[in-house]
């Protein structure tokens, strides 16, 4: 059964193990799962952005055919409001209570006010429409700058302010840096609100029976979900099982503990019936957390010859109405890397968190780091124009010296490894800026934009992020268990919870190499708290750098035991046992050896094991990284802008990314492609737009413009491979890299195109209308 193979799998672009079930329509996402006796749920949501709830009349809904129960916020006797788990350290954060169903006041459109439970998915929606709610509207706050003015209307009256918190991270002498500067550029950089917009909507199936709760949810974090379900409902954690089934994309939007999860669990316990809820897209736009939404004031100072002396950023973060799991910390993640790839002696980020009558912002692909990169990279282009210097020359002049790694930045963050000039050199092997400029079609404005970036990911060293560090109320290690069955088949349990990343394949490649087997022989299990060890989920580009490293370490423990068994059976020294040709054999005698299947046989039928050795062949590892990892790269974007319509065409997009040694090059490229388009979406098309009354204008995919295949080009990708010293695999994350890099490359390209017509700066979204308006304004 156990294959013997000499091949090495790491580094090979093998086809994914996940795909057969997905391409045949045989996967099981949340809406594909039902249980006998299941009821359906629908939420009644506020049409008001801010209002006092005067009354809720549920009588007509209760009488609607098939309805089993109607609950309001006052019925839900939960132990606590929804959780906010990560607070920037050393500051006071105002945290208004956020209940799964609003109790007295609603604070954004879509705030749930009642939960209707009925017998089928259609009639329960009809019944929800029968719930009559009387609202007393209150003043609405939608603009972060206006929200901070004296006398502004308040989102939460009892807080007396819309300011949630202030937090700063800086290093170096900012004043001296600006004093040394010959040139200072100042800009207002807007990073508008966007949606994660996973194509699978969220959904929950809560099944409480005989004292135990099983909750299946389209989530990135089943283990957190189990913990918070236990705390919210007052159930012992051992009696809660959370399952992430096949999950149809997350992008951070499913890194959350949502009110619908808690409310359904509560109602399932109350009614002792399984209950299912599937989000509609319009509900998702209202009540699945958003991302970005920062207004930043940036100042960058430099000497006349192009040495950056100081960088200061003040960010107003639109938090929305409530703090959810990580809400107040998102801009802080950007502050960690506000130096970008540059050696800047003084850097400071000041963050002000502001409440508005909108849904919460939280982690969306990149989470704070796309915003930071955008600020740095757009500002450095502005600085180059101010200095009359080539944009790439200015970047090169300030790149951190490749010889200086590990490199501690001004704010005290240590970058693990990098070679930023190397990535840019590689980019220019594929790309001749002058030839591109010369090839502009008649009537079009051609522009080129660059983004040279790094990011901080591989969340995360617990000593940095934990309670005594950065305030996260947990560690951020990851776990893995590797079980070799008696047949030599291997099951790997990971605490990560992949939802498209392909970890079942990459982890199998790593394990196969270490055990001398094939990836086909290695099954990776994830997303179920009822199997395997405790884990922490998939986000922050952590699943390879932290999750796969823990898999590698658990496998190493299996290998240690395997070698001791082989040494004992072959009467050789343990140190002489090595893996060659798919067999663990004695050095110099490759013919004499045992496959992992034969070793497993010996381990489970323990007739001839070393003295005192336990039978079996499975091991557990908990890996807590010493540092984050810092992927980097260089991107170039070529656009043609039609000055008559303001339309932007992306003509070419070339990207060089470095996430350390590739485990599966296909999967890395796929992550980069998707990441780039996510950021192109923000730069050109997507915007979560609330009007001044707090009404969501972009409430469906009709109005929220996700990029389609027709809107984007094919990409030209290359890689450099600079290993990280942080983990044994040398790997860095790649899930967010494309998104972190690309919005600045696109924006810089559009501004480059528009300079000849007098537009020297503009903010996203770079929609045709906004570009056309900017051109008209420049003309007049």
């Amino acid at each position, binding site marked *: 059964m156990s294959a013997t193979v000499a091949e090495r799998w790491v580094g090979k*672009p093998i086809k994914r193990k996940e795909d057969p079930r997905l391409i045949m329509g045989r996967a099981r996402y949340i809406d594909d799962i039902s249980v006998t006796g299941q009821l359906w749920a629908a939420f009644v949501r506020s049409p008001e952005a801010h209002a006092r709830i005067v009354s809720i009349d549920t009588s007509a809904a209760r009488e609607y055919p098939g309805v089993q129960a109607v609950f309001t916020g006052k019925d839900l006797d939960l132990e606590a409001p929804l959780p906010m788990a990560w607070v920037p350290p050393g500051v006071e954060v105002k945290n208004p209570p956020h209940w799964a169903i609003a109790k007295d006041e609603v604070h954004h459109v879509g705030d749930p006010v009642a939960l209707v439970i009925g017998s089928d998915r259609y009639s329960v929606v009809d019944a929800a429409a029968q719930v009559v709610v009387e609202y007393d509207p209150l003043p609405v706050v939608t603009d972060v700058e206006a929200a901070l003015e004296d006398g502004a209307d308040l989102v939460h009256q009892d807080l007396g302010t819309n300011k949630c918190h202030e937090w700063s991270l800086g290093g170096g002498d900012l004043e001296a840096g600006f004093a040394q500067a010959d040139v200072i550029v100042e800009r207002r950089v807007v990073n508008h609100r966007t949606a994660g917009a996973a194509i699978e909507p969220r959904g929950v199936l809560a099944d409480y029976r005989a004292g135990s709760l099983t909750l299946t949810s389209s989530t990135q974090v089943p283990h957190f979900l189990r913990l918070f379900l236990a705390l919210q409902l007052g159930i012992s954690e051992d009696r809660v099982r959370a399952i992430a089934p096949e999950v149809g994309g997350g992008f951070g939007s499913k890194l959350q503990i949502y009110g619908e999860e808690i409310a359904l669990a509560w109602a399932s316990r109350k009614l002792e019936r399984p209950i299912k809820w599937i989000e509609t897209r*319009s509900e998702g736009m209202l009540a699945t957390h958003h991302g970005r939404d920062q207004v930043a004031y940036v100042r960058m100072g430099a000497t006349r010859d192009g040495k950056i002396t100081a960088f200061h950023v003040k960010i107003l973060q639109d938090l929305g109405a409530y703090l959810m799991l990580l809400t107040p910390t998102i801009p802080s993640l950007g502050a960690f890397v506000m130096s970008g790839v540059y050696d800047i002696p003084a850097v400071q980020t000041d963050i002000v968190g502001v409440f508005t009558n909108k849904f919460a912002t939280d982690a969306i692909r990149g989470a704070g780091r796309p915003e930071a990169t955008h600020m740095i990279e757009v500002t450095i282009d502005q600085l180059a124009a101010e200095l009359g210097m080539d944009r790439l020359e200015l970047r090169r002049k300030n790149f951190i010296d490749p010889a200086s790694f590990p490199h501690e930045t001004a704010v005290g963050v240590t970058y693990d490894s990098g070679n930023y000039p190397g990535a840019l050199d590689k980019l220019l092997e594929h790309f001749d800026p002058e030839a591109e400029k010369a090839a502009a079609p008649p009537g079009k404005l051609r522009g080129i934009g660059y983004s040279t970036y790094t990011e901080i990911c591989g969340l995360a060293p617990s000593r940095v992020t934990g309670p005594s560090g950065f305030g996260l109320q947990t560690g951020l290690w990851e776990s893995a268990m590797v079980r070799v069955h008696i047949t030599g088949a291997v099951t790997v349990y990971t605490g990560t919870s992949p939802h498209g990343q392909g970890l079942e394949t990459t982890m199998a490649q790593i394990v196969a190499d270490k055990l001398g087997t094939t990836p086909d022989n290695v099954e990776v299990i994830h997303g179920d708290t009822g199997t395997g060890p405790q884990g922490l989920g998939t986000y922050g580009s952590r699943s390879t750098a932290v999750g796969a490293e823990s898999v590698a370490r658990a496998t190493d423990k299996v290998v240690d035991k395997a070698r001791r068994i082989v040494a004992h059976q072959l009467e050789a020294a343990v140190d002489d046992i090595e893996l060659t040709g798919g067999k663990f054999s004695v050095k110099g005698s490759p013919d004499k050896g045992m496959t992992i299947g034969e070793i497993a046989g010996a381990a489970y039928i323990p007739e001839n094991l070393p003295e005192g050795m336990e039978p079996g062949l499975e091991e557990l590892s908990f890996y807590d990284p010493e540092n984050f990892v810092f992927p980097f790269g260089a991107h170039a974007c070529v656009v043609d802008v039609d000055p008559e319509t303001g339309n932007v065409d992306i003509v070419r997009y070339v990207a060089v990314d470095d996430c350390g040694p590739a485990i599966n090059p296909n999967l890395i490229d796929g992550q980069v492609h998707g990441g780039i388009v996510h950021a192109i979406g923000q730069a050109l098309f997507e915007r979560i737009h609330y009007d001044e009354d707090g009404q969501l204008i972009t409430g469906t995919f009709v109005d929220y413009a996700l990029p389609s295949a*027709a809107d984007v080009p094919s990409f030209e990708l290359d890689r450099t491979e600079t290993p990280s010293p942080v983990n044994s695999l040398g790997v860095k994350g790649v899930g967010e890299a494309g998104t972190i890099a690309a919005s600045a490359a696109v924006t810089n390209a559009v501004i480059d195109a528009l300079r000849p017509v007098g537009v020297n700066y503009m903010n996203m979204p770079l929609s045709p209308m906004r570009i056309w308006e900017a051109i008209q304004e420049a003309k007049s």
Partner: protein
Amino acid sequence: MAGSVRVSMTVNGTQQSAEVEPRLLLVHFLRETLGLTGTHVGCDTSNCGACTVHLNGEAVKSCTLLAAQADGAEIKTIEGMGQEGALHPLQEAFWEHHGLQCGYCTPGMIMASADLLQRNPKPSEQEVREALAGNLCRCTGYHNIVKAVMAAAES
């Protein structure tokens, strides 16, 4: 909602018949009445195309049709495209070229691509991109989807 209608259709070559609510969407008939959950719902507004199936040989968005409107029709879903060991060339190509990540949009993408290749067996890259403009993917950036469809057209 009062009343019901009898609908009959051939789904993946099998005759199916059921008494359903007149307002039942075709996608829910396929998923819930027949248990064919490979067809997905992503948006409710005909934008995302996750629900794409073939009706009488043409791609349609099954979230925007009533089951009753498909009465008498021939329907093909992703489950009718290929099985283990006998995959459709598009399924093979999506697998080979890493044309999927989370897989949620994939059945709709494959059905829309099959419709394109029936009409235009050798499409250009731009024609593939235009033909798939009604199918949204958040994971892949479309690069490998386009590559997969072009490869399937070659095969």
